């Protein structure tokens, strides 16, 4: 089912035979403005329990702003955000307890600390696991951190200072830090940016494994091939509005999406968009928020 230029949230129907769970994330008519600039205008979409949804769009479309709003880093001017049926906590510090974990475009690793220490931080408050669906409180933060690092192939780097690692390794550490709290919703901000083919394949497998465990994933990406192979549904943003939403194949064929990416209209000339027609390399430029 595809909608164009609509703000009606397309809610996936429940799989027959399974008990209905509230959607993991419901964004309803979200509007965010910075001074005179409207970054998000009436944005609505949902991420169902266990779904992997991709949020794509040209640079400056507002994708990271959506993340920032969900995380409580910016205050919306209008609309609502619900997590697991309940209103999203307005403050980023309560996300871990709500079962949400996020990676940052700039990684935001804690400099001056080792890999292990970085990954142990989210467990330091003991809030992890109190509300998440995978809710057993990790008894020993260090053991839980090591387990996550093993899972991501970082065992040999456990005591290295995080500043000394290569970029792909740093990205893995950031991912480990997000996964260590066993979240029920994982927000990935351009996880494939700056990675080579092998690392991207490894990342895709990790995301699939995480989704198979029942975690919902919302990812923002420029790397279209990566996204299309991974997502159950794709939401396309342009200029702060949802212009398309649906399964990858349908979105790919939508002319509105093609226009947004390829910049057919004069006002978008020279913009750094990319679309299916372009060789699907990722551009890891910092998207304007």
């Amino acid at each position, binding site marked *: 089912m595809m909608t164009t230029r609509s703000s009606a949230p397309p809610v996936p129907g429940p799989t027959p035979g399974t008990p209905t769970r509230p959607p993991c994330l419901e964004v309803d008519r979200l509007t965010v403005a910075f001074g005179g600039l409207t970054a998000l205008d009436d944005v609505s979409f949902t991420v169902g329990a266990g779904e992997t949804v991709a949020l794509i769009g040209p640079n400056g479309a507002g994708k990271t702003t959506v993340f920032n709003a969900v995380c409580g880093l910016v205050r919306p001017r209008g609309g609502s955000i619900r997590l697991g049926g309940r209103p999203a906590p307005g403050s*980023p510090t309560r996300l871990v307890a709500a079962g949400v974990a996020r990676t940052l475009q700039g990684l935001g690793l804690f400099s001056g600390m080792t890999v292990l220490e970085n990954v142990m931080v989210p467990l*330091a408050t003991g809030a992890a696991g109190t509300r998440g669906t995978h809710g057993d409180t990790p008894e020993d933060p260090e053991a839980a951190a090591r387990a996550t690092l093993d899972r991501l192939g970082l065992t040999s780097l456990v005591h290295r200072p995080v500043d000394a690692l290569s970029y792909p390794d740093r990205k893995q550490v950031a991912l480990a830090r997000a996964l260590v709290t066993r979240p029920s919703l994982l927000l990935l901000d351009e996880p494939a940016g700056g990675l080579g083919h092998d690392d991207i394949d490894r990342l895709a497998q990790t995301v699939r494994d995480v989704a198979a465990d029942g975690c919902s994933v919302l990812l923002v990406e420029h790397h279209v091939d990566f996204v299309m192979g991974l997502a159950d549904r794709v939401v396309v943003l342009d200029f702060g509005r949802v212009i398309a939403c649906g399964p990858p194949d349908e979105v790919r064929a939508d002319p509105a999406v093609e226009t947004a990416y390829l910049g057919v209209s004069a006002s978008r000339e020279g913009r750094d968009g990319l679309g299916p027609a372009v060789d699907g390399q990722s551009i890891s430029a910092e998207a304007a928020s």
Partner: protein
Amino acid sequence: MNRVLPQVTGTPRILLGGLALAFLGIAVTFVLDPYRNYQLAIVAAYFCATAGLSVLVGLTGQLSLGHAALMAAGGYGYALAASLVDGMADGGPGTSGDEGTSVVRVLAGLAGAVVVSGVLGLLLGLAGARLRGPYLAGLTLALVIALPAVTAVLRGVLGGDQGLRAPYEDVPPALERLVALEQWHAWIAILAASVAATGLVLLRRSRAGLQMRAVHGDETAARLSGVPAGRVKVVAFVASAVSAGLGGAVLCLVTQSVSPGAYSLAFSLLLVVAAVVGGLGSLGGAAVGSAVVVLLPWLIESVTTALDLPADLQQRLSGNLAVLVFGALLVVVTLAWPGGAAGALAARRAARSQQPPLTER
């Protein structure tokens, strides 16, 4: 420490380490003459404040320009509590006499110091630590500059410019033969310093310490990881304030007085110098820095006296020359060796350990 008792790790190891250092310090007092022991006590007092400041800046990146005022708070807390206990004891105020009363007085004084400096630290921390940037620094600067005015306004309790007097603590009768007065005071100072150091190391290694370092590393990412950044910074500030308060209490005990003149802006800046030169975040560095900050002015003073300069020039140089050197040191160390003495030492060690094993020495 771990080479001696490798099976002891974690908290017990730190506690043992603190005790060992205390014993070492006490042993050293036997070989020093009274004046040196007095200086040692002063260095230990400065260390308490410097260590607190160094850990605060190193761990959370918050700069306090008013740690002298926090020491003063500890000093006043000590004087008030100890005098209170003294007044309640039999035989009236002043002389020690009864060993038991002396211990009670000192303990009460230290408790008073901890409470007053802790409360002040909490207020300052709440006001400034939640914000990023220079606001805490500016607030603490305002505090230390306003200290004389504060004591004047609260003249009834704090005694204005004259300050307060604290009871004189003599050597307990049992130890009278063994230990001189300055040595006894040095012991108390060393014990206080060990307690402060142990507490700070435990804090650094705890979950709270991890959270503090995370906030310093990247505050947004830390908050997204569930760390309550504001609260964490306040805790760090209170810990450093209490440590400084202990130092102030020791100074008060050793000098039997506390007054605003002794805790000036210049003193606060001296503490910053000690922390930076030693290496921010390092307790060993704090010890080195405190020693430098106490001994260098004394050294400069001796040199200028020896040079036999005209009295007017002598007067002008006194104090100012040391400050000039320290200011220059602060600038140079920050630009050239940001890790301070501790950082330089660590870099050397790291470089040495990475040398190829084929190299024969």
